[in-house]
């Protein structure tokens, strides 16, 4: 750890840099690539495709909600037998809701968001040649791909995809004949999710180990960009919560296919009679599911928050306000997310004592969330703000995080939840705080790191239009839902025109659907901008946003191994913008500075304890102290 060893290592790095790589074949380079940058692009493009599909599904069921009694010819030509006479089949409606949720939660906002940016940024921002295990990284993508294929293939099944909601609660999911989607569709759903869990674990192990073990020289934990902190904690969350879903899924598979009764008991079925199962409890599934499900919410949100921190600091040209407060709030959100799952289950009939526990711990989450929000605002305060599309989306995230987060405090109250549970209030809450906010974080990241990924710039004007349309339409879609929910409109209902009491909401539903189509159209703009810019965008400079972090020190053209020479060492934190002693308003982490020599700080002498000549163990001191006290022993 002395100066000599540090310098001695350079030789090996140089050897590597000059080592001739023969150009890999097309398949090795683009398909079964082990390069983290390519894998991140694969994740991103798969995520975008899945996102488009998820959004299309939402538009389909929004049509049904807005005009429940009318028929549309194009639906029949689009969906065939599932929209006979131009009206979506009720079972298919449920399937659309289910798969929309699954795709958005797992495939877009988990794999698409954290998979893309963890892969792209972790090695580049911590200064590593690649992930700890590039091979496992590749497997992670291909498990994800297989999982997507299996999930989508359930649309080709005669009885339709899984349709018991994205949480696939038993008994709807455990009884093969409960509804059409409960058959093969749910089986495929479970297979897809287990493949997804494998992918998430392979990825998560890689991310954690890369961040902990492979940081470049000088990249101490308090110099990590906040993105990396967020990805690290996200990976930890996934690593500890997905296995529990695996256990829950295993029980569910056995219940479905092998006649066990973990989640089933002798419930009475209309027309069939009492079931033969005994002893299980569906609430147990909900416990196990939400032990994953709640951390999953933060798996979605934390990367978006990390990206936002980075983008806001860069584009406000200010250090992020309260770096350590940001890290601590991320940490405490991560820890708290594991102990609050039961607030999804207040009205399931679980032990009321649990409800009390969960309510209190849930409300504590408001504290770190508020810390983050205030720090974002304080960073923006008096900043020299550059309104790039990435910045606008980041500010949009803060807005959604506030407006959606506040309703979370209402829903966290067990008493209020009795009224609000399973109503459109919940839909509005989670679509704002984890749907829109996380999607905005994802867009922000795409706009910000597009030059890094593809070496070209995206069109800023189109980006701004995309932002404003999406921002407005998101609020127009989700804000009215609060009022519907407060009035008691339940979610996942197929046809509100059958319930006269809900007739007053018909116009609101039409408004929401029209806004949703507006939002959908805005995404076409994004798709055009994205795919056009990959090939025809303006070529990017090496550091287009004048950012400090390490990834911009790598060449524009992607290299296997990221940096041509040595990995740059890091001399300062990631947010040193607008330093008064500098001409430029940024100071990259790897730049040595005003010509002063690099000084390797030797490890400090270990602190001498007062009685360091004492060789006794603490236990021994502890016990002998009693002898000393009773004067049996002289010091």
């Amino acid at each position, binding site marked *: 750890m002395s100066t000599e060893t540090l310098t001695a290592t350079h030789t090996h790095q140089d050897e590597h840099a000059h080592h001739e790589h023969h150009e890999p074949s097309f398949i090795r380079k683009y398909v079964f690539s082990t390069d983290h940058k390519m894998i991140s692009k694969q994740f991103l493009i798969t995520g975008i495709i899945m996102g488009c599909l998820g959004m299309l599904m939402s538009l389909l069921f929004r049509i049904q909600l807005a005009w429940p009694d009318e028929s549309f010819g194009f639906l029949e030509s689009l969906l065939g037998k599932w929209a006979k006479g131009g009206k979506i089949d009720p079972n298919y409606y449920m399937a659309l809701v289910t798969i929309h949720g699954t795709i958005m939660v797992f495939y877009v906002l988990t794999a698409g968001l954290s998979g893309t940016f963890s892969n792209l940024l972790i090695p580049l921002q911590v200064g590593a040649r690649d992930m700890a295990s590039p091979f496992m990284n590749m497997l992670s993508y291909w498990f994800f791909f297989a999982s997507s294929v299996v999930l989508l293939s359930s649309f080709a099944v005669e009885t339709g995809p899984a349709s018991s909601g994205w949480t696939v609660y038993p008994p709807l999911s455990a009884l093969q004949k409960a509804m059409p989607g409960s058959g093969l569709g749910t089986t495929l759903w479970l297979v897809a999710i287990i493949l997804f869990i494998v992918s998430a674990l392979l990825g998560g192990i890689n991310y954690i180990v890369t961040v902990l073990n492979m940081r470049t020289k000088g990249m101490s934990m308090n110099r990590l960009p906040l993105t990396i902190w967020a990805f690290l904690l996200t990976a930890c969350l996934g690593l500890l919560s997905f296995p529990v879903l695996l256990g829950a899924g295993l029980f569910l598979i056995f219940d479905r296919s092998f006649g066990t009764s973990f989640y089933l008991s002798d419930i009475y079925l209309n027309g069939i009679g009492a079931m033969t199962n005994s002893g299980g409890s569906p609430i147990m599934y909900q416990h196990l599911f939400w032990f994953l499900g709640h951390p999953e919410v933060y798996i979605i949100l934390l990367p978006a928050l990390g990206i936002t921190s980075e983008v806001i600091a860069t584009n406000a040209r200010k250090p992020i306000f309260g770096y350590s407060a940001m890290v601590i709030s991320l940490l405490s959100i991560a820890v708290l997310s594991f102990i609050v799952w039961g607030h999804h289950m207040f009205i399931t009939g679980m032990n009321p004592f649990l409800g009390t526990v969960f309510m209190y711990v849930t409300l504590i989450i408001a504290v770190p969330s508020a810390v983050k929000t205030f720090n974002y605002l304080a960073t923006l305060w008096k900043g020299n703000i550059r309104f790039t599309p990435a910045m606008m989306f980041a500010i949009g995230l803060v807005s959604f995080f506030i407006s959606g987060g506040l309703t979370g405090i209402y829903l966290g109250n067990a008493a209020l939840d009795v009224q609000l549970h399973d109503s459109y209030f919940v839909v509005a809450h989670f679509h704002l705080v984890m749907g829109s906010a996380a999607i905005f974080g994802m867009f922000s990241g795409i706009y910000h790191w597009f030059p890094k990924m593809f070496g070209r710039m995206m069109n800023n004007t189109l980006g701004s239009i995309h932002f404003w349309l999406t921002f407005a339409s998101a609020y127009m879609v989700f804000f009215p839902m609060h009022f519907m929910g407060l009035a008691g409109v339940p979610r996942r209902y197929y046809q509100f025109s059958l319930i006269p009491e809900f007739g007053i909401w018909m116009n609101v539903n039409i408004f929401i659907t029209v806004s949703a189509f507006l939002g959908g159209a805005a995404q076409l703009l994004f798709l055009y901008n994205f795919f056009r810019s990959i090939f025809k965008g303006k070529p990017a400079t090496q550091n287009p946003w004048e950012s400090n972090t390490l990834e911009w020190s790598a060449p524009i053209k992607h290299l296997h191994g990221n940096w041509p020479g040595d990995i740059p060492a890091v001399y300062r934190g990631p947010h040193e913008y607008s330093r008064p002693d500098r001409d430029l308003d940024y100071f990259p982490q790897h730049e040595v500075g005003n010509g002063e020599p690099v000084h390797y700080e030797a490890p400090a002498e270990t602190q001498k*304890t*007062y009685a360091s000549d004492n060789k006794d163990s*603490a236990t021994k001191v502890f016990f002998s*102290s009693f002898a000393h*006290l009773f004067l049996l022993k002289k*010091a």
Partner: protein
Amino acid sequence: MSSSTIQNNTTPKEFSPKTVIIWLLIVASTMLFLAFCSAYFVHQGDGLRNNAWLKFDLPFEFWLSAGIVLISSFFMQMAYRAAQKDDIYKIPSLLTITLICGIAFCISQFYGWLNLMDRGLFLSNKEPAEISASFVYVISAAHFAHIIGGLILLTVGIARASKLQIHKKNLVFINICKTYWHFLGILWILLLLFLYFA
């Protein structure tokens, strides 16, 4: 290992930021208990006007606890003195005795609540007059929660003292322990007197 490094590296830092934090905490929890006491007065005023205020004897266990807490404060002070005099090999045992006294205090409080319950006084009562009992529960439980924090602090203190990290030149932690523990003792006695006389 030489004495010179000790003198150079460790300077007495008795008034460290951590001490300020503990004082702030003390102020904050004093405010909490003041709030309880004023709420008590308000309710008592209402209750006495409507003849709905139950007077009852405090359980004798609470007075026992007061005695225990006095004893523990004495040992705490001894531990602090030992640290001041650099009698470092006595600190762990003295702190342990303090801790045991603290645990005994907790047990005694627990029996005090059982005593109240035996007399049919519960945390939530149907009779409006019995709100005085609820107050006794809430106030003693809030104090109990503070004691738990103190016990954790003491455990850390014992661990540090066993590693010989508490000594004449490093009194910060034991100072914190001492301040907080004495505060808890005084607080309990004051609360008890308040409940007795009010």
